[in-house]
Structures are given as C-alpha cells and as structure tokens.
C-alpha cells in the first residue's frame, strides 16, 4: 500500500469512529463534520470553513474553577474540568485529558524530569515544568548506540525516576537466556523490594487515573468531538538535547563529538517510530503530536540545522508518513529561516503549527504544500481583549486560509486567560472562515 492508502484507512477509522455510541444523531453529524474539516485541511483541500483547534493545556482546570494542582491529584475534578472545557468550546478536536498527568503517580515513582505544583513548584503553579540535566553523560554515547533499550533501562530510567534507582545495579540486559534469572535475582535483592512496592502502588494509581481519562475521552467523543493526538514523538535532536544530555551537554557534543551525536540520533529513529506506531494503532486519531524546541531560528544556525536537526528528523517524519500517520508539529519560537527546508516532504503529508513564525511568509513558502496553523500567541490571549483576538484571527484567515490547507489554532497551549478570548477564536473561524 502507498502511504496515501494507509492514511486513507486511518482517516476512515477516525471518521467512522467504530464503537462510539453518539449521544444523538446531531452529535454523530457534528463529529463527522469536524473530522472532515481537519482531514480536508491536512490534504490541502478546502473544507466548509476554516477548522479551529483549541488545545487544552492547563486552561480546563482554571475554567472549571479549580487550579492545576487540584486536577492533577483529584481525578473527579480532572473529569469535570475536561468535560466542561470540551463541551463549552466548540473546538473541532479535543485534546485528551491524559495531558493532565497524575500527580500522585509521579510522587510515588519520584519522577525527576518534571517539577509540578507541590513537588518542586509552588502549589499555585499552573503547569508542569521540565528539569534539564545531563541524565546521560558525555562518554555514554557508545552504550546508547550499542543497545538503546538496555541503555534506557539501566542508565536513564534509574536516573530519571527515583523509584527505579535500583535498576542501575542490573548487569547488561543482553543475554537471551539470562533474563529470567536476572529478574529473579532482582526480586530477591532487598534494594529492589521498595521498587516493586512502588510499582504496585503507582499502578493502582494509574488504573484510577486511566479509568477517568478513558471515560472522559469516551464522553467527549460521544458528544461529537474528535480526539487528537494518536501518539507523541520528539525530533531526535530534541530527544537528546531536552531529555538525555540537556542543552548544555548537547551543545558540547556538537563541537566535541559530532559524529557520536549524529549516530545516536539515527539510532533513536526506529525506536521512536515503533513507540508512536503502537500508540497510534490503539487510538482513533492518526495525528502524531510533535512538540519542537531546539531547531528554531534563534537557537541554531542554518548550518547547524542542516547538519544536526533536520536530516534525522526528516527521516523520522518520512517513516511516520509511510505508516499512514500525520505528523503534527507544534513549533516553538520562530521558523522563518527553516521554511524552505521543511518544505522538503511529500505534499499534504504533515501539519505545521507555528508559535511566532511570520505566517505570511509561511503561507508563501508552504502554501499548496503543507497544512499550516498556529500563531495565536499566549501573550495575545493573556493580555488582549476578545476584539483584539478576533481582529488578529481575521488577519490570520485572510493571510493563510485562501486555497485551503489551514487550521486556525494557538501557537502554544495556554494555562489561563479570559475564556472569551478563546471563544473569539472559534467564533471567528465560524463566522469569518467560511470557504465560498
């Protein structure tokens, strides 16, 4: 099958929503209309009107009268917040409640990559924040390259999750025959006992949380709102520079061991692909959410982008596309100098959501080639009025919508703002974004 045929199958599944009992015939119709709108935009066709997506972020918490910490720990509050958000804003897709991670599970397992309200951040903090460190040392590239799964299990897992610290004690997990005995030895090691206890406790918590997440997704779907995000991935450079080596470490590697860095990124591609494919096969939506960080205009030069960021990322994208999936990039910062590079993908195969990129330029370069969207900034939503938001959205529609291939959406998710500013976006899409 060609990638287009594989994708048609996934689109068909998304559109027909097998197993979903819609609350009414209107909900069924609404679902179909919304999903069709997005699919049309992805395929660079003209929908009935400009599709509009409002990502949730932490906003549902505050909108429902809670704060972010409350919905991280109280799953019933999480349920109410997400359902209210989904039903009150007529977004063409609704993000999954799973974006609100379970606080208690992270407490039990002592997750080091995040800080969250009450755990490293003040209780009032409105979002999770990332802790960058050299979780992988400069001299560990060979270990990663030789056996990535072993490296993740014995090096990265114990360094990033306190409860998994004993994993660092295990010998290399490479022998086919030895693995059962390795596990038995671990089970009888007193240091591993607390780890297994923590896993059991965390798992109970996960079940409670997941039950609500699934129920929320179900009721939102039944009300006629397509889900988004059939999987999540990172550009290989971001995997290294965000998670494994940190910005500082990754930069040192660009100068001191560029070949190792490049080889490691190549090595990560099939792992990432496999993970995403498994996620996507389980969900309705064929879009793969890819938040993008360190390839932007301000961070690196064109030469560095050409060498370190784009080649491995492009390979990953092509592999995802070939599975019939739709990479949906949310690009932090500006990509004004990257537009010509990223044009080099099959026509109508991806979505680029930009934060601060010049949208007129983006349309000029990518128009007729890739679906674009974004650029309603957090700053405008937080400091502007509904009139200002409408005015800006009209400009975006005038600039980007002609000919199709456009989604009106935020450049980044928002924690809290005047709800009328979000309504203003949806209203503008409905009233001003009709294709004639």
């Amino acid at each position, binding site marked *: 099958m060609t990638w287009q045929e594989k994708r048609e199958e996934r689109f068909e599944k998304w559109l027909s929503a097998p197993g979903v009992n819609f609350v009414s015939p209107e909900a069924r119709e609404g679902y179909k209309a919304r999903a069709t709108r997005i699919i049309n935009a992805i395929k660079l066709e003209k929908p009935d009107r400009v599709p509009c997506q409002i990502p949730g972020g932490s906003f549902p918490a505050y909108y429902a009268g809670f704060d972010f910490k409350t919905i991280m720990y109280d799953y019933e509050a999480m349920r109410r917040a997400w359902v209210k958000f989904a039903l009150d804003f007529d977004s063409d897709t609704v993000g999954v409640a799973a974006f609100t991670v379970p606080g208690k599970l992270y407490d039990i397992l002592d997750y080091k990559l995040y800080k969250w309200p009450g755990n490293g951040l003040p209780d009032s903090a*409105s979002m999770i924040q990332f802790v960058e460190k050299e979780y992988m040392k400069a001299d560990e590239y060979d270990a990663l390259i030789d056996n990535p799964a072993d490296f993740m299990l014995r090096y990265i897992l114990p360094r990033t999750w306190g409860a998994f610290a004993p994993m660092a004690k295990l010998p290399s997990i490479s022998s086919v025959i030895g693995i059962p005995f390795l596990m038995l030895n671990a089970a009888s090691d007193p240091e591993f006992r607390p780890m297994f206890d923590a896993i059991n406790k965390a798992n109970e918590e996960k079940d409670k949380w997941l039950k609500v997440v699934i129920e929320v997704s179900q009721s939102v779907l039944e009300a006629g709102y397509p889900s988004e995000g059939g999987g999540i991935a990172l550009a290989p450079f971001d995997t290294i520079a965000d998670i494994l080596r940190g*910005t500082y470490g990754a930069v040192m590697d*660009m100068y001191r061991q560029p070949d190792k860095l490049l080889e490691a990124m190549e090595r990560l591609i099939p792992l990432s692909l496999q993970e995403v494919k498994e996620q996507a096969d389980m969900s309705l939506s064929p879009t793969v959410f890819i938040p993008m960080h360190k390839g932007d205009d*301000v*961070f690196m030069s064109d030469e560095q982008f050409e060498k370190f960021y784009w080649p491995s990322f492009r390979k990953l994208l092509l592999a995802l596309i070939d599975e019939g999936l739709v990479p949906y990039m949310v690009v932090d910062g500006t990509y004004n100098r990257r537009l010509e590079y990223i044009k080099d993908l099959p026509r109508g195969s991806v979505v680029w959501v930009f934060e601060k990129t010049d949208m007129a330029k983006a349309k000029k370069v990518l128009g007729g080639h890739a679906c674009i969207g974004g650029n309603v900034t957090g700053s405008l939503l937080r*400091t502007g009025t509904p009139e200002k938001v409408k005015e800006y959205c009209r400009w975006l529609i005038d600039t980007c919508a002609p000919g199709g291939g456009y989604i009106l959406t935020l450049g*980044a998710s928002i924690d*809290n703002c005047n709800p009328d500013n979000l309504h203003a976006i949806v209203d503008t899409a409905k009233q001003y974004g009709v294709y004639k």
Partner: protein
Amino acid sequence: MPKDFVDLLADLQEEEVIKLTKQRLEAGEEALAILDDSRKAMEVVGDRFAEGKYFIPELVYSGELLTQITELVKPYLTRSAESKRLGKVVIGTVAGDIHDIGLNIVGFMLDVHGFEVYNLGVDVSPQKFVEKMKETSAPVLGLSGFLTLAFNSMKETVEALEAAGLRDKMKIMIGGGQMDDEVKKFAKADAYGKDAMEAVSLAKKWIGVK
C-alpha cells in the same frame, strides 16, 4: 603565522586556545592580560551573535571555553581581577518559573561585556527582587520567564517594586520564551529584548555606556 589568542577564542578553537593559554602562563605572562584578552574575544562572540553569525550553541560553547581558561589562570592571579565595572544589573527568572538556560546566557553576556551581574536564579519572588534592588541600588533589572505563567509574576514583581517606592529608580527589561512587547506593556516593564545581546544593548543604553 599562528592565530592570536583573541581570534582563537572567538573562533571557538578549544584545543588551540587552551594550549596557548598554558603556553602564555608558562612564559610568565600576566594572568590578567589573558583574562583581558578573553573578555575581548567574548565581545567578538557577542558581536557575531548580534550579527546573526553565531547562535546559542556558540554562546554556550564560548562560555565553557572561558570557564576552562579562567580555571587555568586562577592559580596565577596575584592581584584581584576586579576590573572597573560598567554598572550593576540584577537578573532572575520570575516566581513560579524554573527555566534558566536563557537567564544564564544573558547573565554571562552581561558579565563579559563588563557589567556587575547579580543573578538571583529561578523562581524568584517579587519580595526577593525588591530586597536585592534595595541592597544593590542597581539601575537595571532583567526579568526572565519562559512560560505564560510568568506574565503575571512579572507584573507582580513590577508592582512590588512600585509599592516599595523603587520603580522610578530603575529600568526593567523582560525576555524569554513567550515574552513580547505586549507582555512588556502588561507587566509595565520598560523594554522587551529578544536575545542576550539585546539585553546588553539595553543595559548599555540605560547605564549610559557609549
């Protein structure tokens, strides 16, 4: 002819510049002269960044090279390295936000351009900013933030300085991820700077450095 020290460092030639540092020290050269050359090289790095020739990796890497050189030079320092400083600048990431990569690059660039930098780190409360501004009488304050949640913290920080009667004694610049001119207005700051070299230019302008 071999490249001179300033060029080597500005061109980020790690091996050569470290080798040359050791040679100069062994030859009995004044340690302060090496530091002075390093500062000159860092200004070239800053200029290249402002011109769009260098980017974040070059700034971070140059910082690493400077640290190595400083470590080598330290044992040879006979008198204090305190050169005349242009003026004081207090910087920090506002309450609730823990991002520090941009903050530290700004701190580093201000430092190598001759400012006396007080870097308060991350998640700095308005009260802590007020106390530091009182204590240092710095004429320039830089507020950093990456996330939308920093908008309110910036505003609250400026308001705390107003309430303490300090606001008109200083200029305030903001920068980082989601910041822009609209946030500057919202937070009642004096300027938004898009990168580390804009922070240097703003500080120079406000402190009256030619």
